[in-house]
């Protein structure tokens, strides 16, 4: 398996482990946005949200919630962003699904992406396309 994260799970590559159980591993991102930036991954290899079974996804997000709170409280932060980049077009660099927990302080300067607006009728068009596919 040529996946960097699978090698970390298998202890072939070291990591700063924050948490581990039988399904999930969490470790410090070595290139943090802010110190304490954590990656939370399933131990099984899944590329993205489409591949990971619901049950494993739920186990993962529950750990994300636990670790987010721990990081905020114990490293003196005031909030955090949870994010998942699904596919290389979304900035996913490692093709093994992972959630980022990025700790935040007031005024640390990280801005959200700019928001735009819909032209008349545009939202309805887009909605139709999605609604046709939502089960």
């Amino acid at each position: 398996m040529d996946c960097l994260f699978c090698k970390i799970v298998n202890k072939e590559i070291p990591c700063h482990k924050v948490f581990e159980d039988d399904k999930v591993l969490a470790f410090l991102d070595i290139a943090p946005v802010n110190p304490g930036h954590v990656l939370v991954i399933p131990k099984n290899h899944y590329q993205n949200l489409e591949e990971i079974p619901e049950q494993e996804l739920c186990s993962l997000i529950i750990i994300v919630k636990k670790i987010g709170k721990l990081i905020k409280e114990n490293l003196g932060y005031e909030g955090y962003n949870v994010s998942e980049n699904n596919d290389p077009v979304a900035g996913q660099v490692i093709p093994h699904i992972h959630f980022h927990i990025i700790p935040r302080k007031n005024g640390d300067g990280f801005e959200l992406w700019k928001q735009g607006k819909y032209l008349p009728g545009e939202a309805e068009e887009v909605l139709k396309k999605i609604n046709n596919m939502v089960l």
Partner: protein
Amino acid sequence: MDCIFCKIIASDIPSYKVYEDDMVYAFFDILPISQGHTIIVSKKHVADIEGLSEEELSAMTKAVKKIGKAMIEGLGVKGYSVFLDNKSAANQHVPHVHFHLVPRAEGDGLERWPQSGYGEGEAEFCLKKVQSKL
């Protein structure tokens, strides 16, 4: 209840509804980062992720997965960004817990935040502080 998202869920304010089940409501952000930008909320008013029960958080996350797939198939996008902002320090503007699901395209110009490195011993220091509470 003075919460804009609660008003949307109650249909006091109209929305472009994407999805609804017993615990979750999803609708278009009317100021989208990209077309189809969807907000997924718990129907129950909970300020942030830490107030959610495991069941509520799981329900929201399952909806994210369903809607993400619908975006790929319906909008023909290859991927999307999922994020949840916890507290105002993390840019949470509405104090009702919500995921954002933003469809993405090649060259859309949406950049990740810059990443740096750790100084000597810094990572170990962070780790010790967190692990001592696990």
